């Protein structure tokens, strides 16, 4: 369903590509509450046709009668039969999405955007810096790294969360550190007495982390302020700006570069991004209100 039939050649859409403006129905298979306000939904297509996607891409998730929100895919790229989205409840649409119980049908448009392109880090170290829910769009990239672990040297994950209760994917973090050869360093902005781990801002982890900056690939995701400081810190360590990738966020409506909302100067973040190189982003992030 949803494909445009019979129109003249000359346009970009083809008979085989479904209309990206039409939501595809996906049924909620499982809901897992990660933290007090964050939930991971596992979705499966009602027509059985799996969604082909790349780590770093997002979909527009539609709650019938409420609206849509752009949500990064947070699942395992080697398992396209079910797609996972980790959603933080911050408004009416995300509230409706996290409240969708198993069996609810949601609309999915996409996937859209550029991916992390992890493969370009082969033969060197990979440093992943995540802040808050920014770990969710990075999770597929980490899973891809693990699936091809031998292709990479050191893989380091530096993760900052608000408090210990806000740490996402705690089981994964433990498995990645203990079983999958990932160096995992976690810090929180503040913690209660019972927390035995680090307290401090995530960029402080960058100065201490052990990696070979010159050949490293850096992947950064989180609030824009955090990404700006993290990119600067990695750059100060010697990671080349064109080897630093950030996932940028702006208002999104269409996902296909037509509505104009997601523009960051000449870039349409839904088409040219959301993953972009720091060499391109640095001048655009250094000014207010661009």
């Amino acid at each position, binding site marked *: *369903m*949803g494909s*445009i*039939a*019979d*129109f*003249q*050649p*000359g*346009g*970009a*859409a083809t008979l085989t590509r479904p*209309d*990206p*403006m*039409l*939501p595809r*129905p996906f049924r909620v298979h499982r809901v897992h509450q990660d933290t007090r306000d964050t939930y991971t939904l596992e979705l499966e297509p*009602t027509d059985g046709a799996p969604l082909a996607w790349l780590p770093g891409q997002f979909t527009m998730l539609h709650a*019938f*009668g*409420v*609206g*849509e929100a752009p949500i990064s895919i947070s699942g395992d790229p080697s398992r396209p039969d079910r797609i996972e989205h980790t959603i933080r409840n*911050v*408004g009416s649409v995300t509230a409706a999405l996290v409240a969708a119980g198993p*069996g*609810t*049908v949601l*609309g999915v448009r996409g996937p859209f955007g550029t991916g992390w392109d992890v493969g370009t880090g082969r033969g060197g170290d990979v440093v992943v810096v995540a802040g808050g829910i920014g770990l969710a769009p990075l999770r597929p990239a980490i899973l891809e790294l693990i699936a091809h672990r031998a292709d990479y040297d050191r893989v380091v994950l530096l993760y900052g969360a608000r408090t210990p209760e806000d740490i996402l994917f705690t089981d994964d973090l433990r498995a990645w550190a203990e079983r999958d050869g990932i160096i995992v360093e976690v810090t929180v902005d503040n913690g209660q007495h019972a927390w035995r781990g680090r307290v401090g801002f995530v960029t402080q982890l960058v100065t201490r982390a052990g990696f070979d900056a010159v050949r490293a690939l850096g992947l950064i995701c989180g*609030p824009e302020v955090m990404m700006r400081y993290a990119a600067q810190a990695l750059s100060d360590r010697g990671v080349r700006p064109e080897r630093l990738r950030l996932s940028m*966020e*702006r*208002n999104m*409506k*269409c996902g*296909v*570069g*037509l*509505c*104009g*909302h997601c*523009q960051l*100067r*000449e870039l*349409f973040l839904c*088409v040219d991004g959301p993953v972009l190189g720091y060499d391109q982003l640095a001048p655009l992030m250094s*000014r*207010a*209100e*661009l």
Partner: protein
Amino acid sequence: MTEEFDGTRSVDAESIPQPISPRTLDTTGLQALIDALAWRGYTVIGPTVSGGAIVNAPIRTLDDLPRGWGDAQEAAHYRLRRRDDDAFFGFAAGAQSAKPVFFPTDELLWRGRRTRGEFTVEPESDDGSTAATAGQGPYALLGVRSCDLHAIAIHDRVLTGRVQADAHYTARREEAFIVSVSCTDPGGTCFCVSMGTGPRPEGGARARFDLSLTELLDGGVHRFVVEVGSERGADVLSDISALPAPIDDLAAADGVATSAAGRMGRTLDTDGLKELLYTSVESPRWDDVASRCLACTNCTMVCPTCFCTTVHDVSDLTGEVAERHRVWDSCFDSDFSYIHGGTVRDSTKSRYRQWMTHKLGSWIDQFGTSGCVGCGRCITWCPAAIDITAEAAALRGVPQPARPF
């Protein structure tokens, strides 16, 4: 990069077998042209006088056209005036361009129904008809100016030449017939010459037409030189008796264009303009324009190349039927750039800077041409008399003359 939609159903202008030489039509012939188009099933849209302005509306006879009307345009100023001749097209840019014809203000994207936990989505019909336009196409546009022709080509690239073609737009464009006119009387806010977009429709990839008229009122018969721009145009013209245009008429048509080119109300120096805008992010000029700009969005509404839209999701009282509409939006709108936690472009200053930088600068990186066609509408229809050409010159450091308003 995908193929650009070329605006015609069949071959492009360069490969029409045997260039068809220009013809001449008198006023009876103009009516015959309108009739021929109507007979072929087109709804003919042309300029009309309404509410003190020139607006596009369906026309049937010459009496529907603004015969003998001209206009006076300046920053924040638009008036119609009576001409001392009978010209049908003796005015500059009308209040709206062709944009709303192909790109409606409200477009139904899909309708969805929810039953027992399932939901199905019905796309709008593939021929492009929607609730807004059902039964009204195909359209023949009469009187499209060269600036607006360039704007149509720009929209073709924006809306069909990127990742995803807008299917409704493509369908409407494919079936539309365009009769452009050469400007005889440019206005106080026109600067198509600076932008390389006029005053005479040139045809070619950036300014395609099916037929193009140049109105001649030189004391002889009131007539039009008709140029053919496509096979479809030749086809329609063959329905009307039109004699080949004499050499003198061709020269007169050239003269009209030359004269109009010399009477532009504004100029815009486009040299290095993108780089200037990219490096002027902190210019104090933005604060100056922000003190005048009301963020009313008039400029984006009348601009023939602005394309920003948003979506409205509506459902009925039962919650069982939902519709998604695409509606025009404007980057001047206060929550255009809203993301959770705040609005990126909160100040009017940042929004004006965004619009102008995009229109004259980043558009080039995105689509290969400037986004501005020099039609002057944003200057005429700005209630605060903000002039994009003056702002560009000010950024360059060129002192601006005071304008009376």
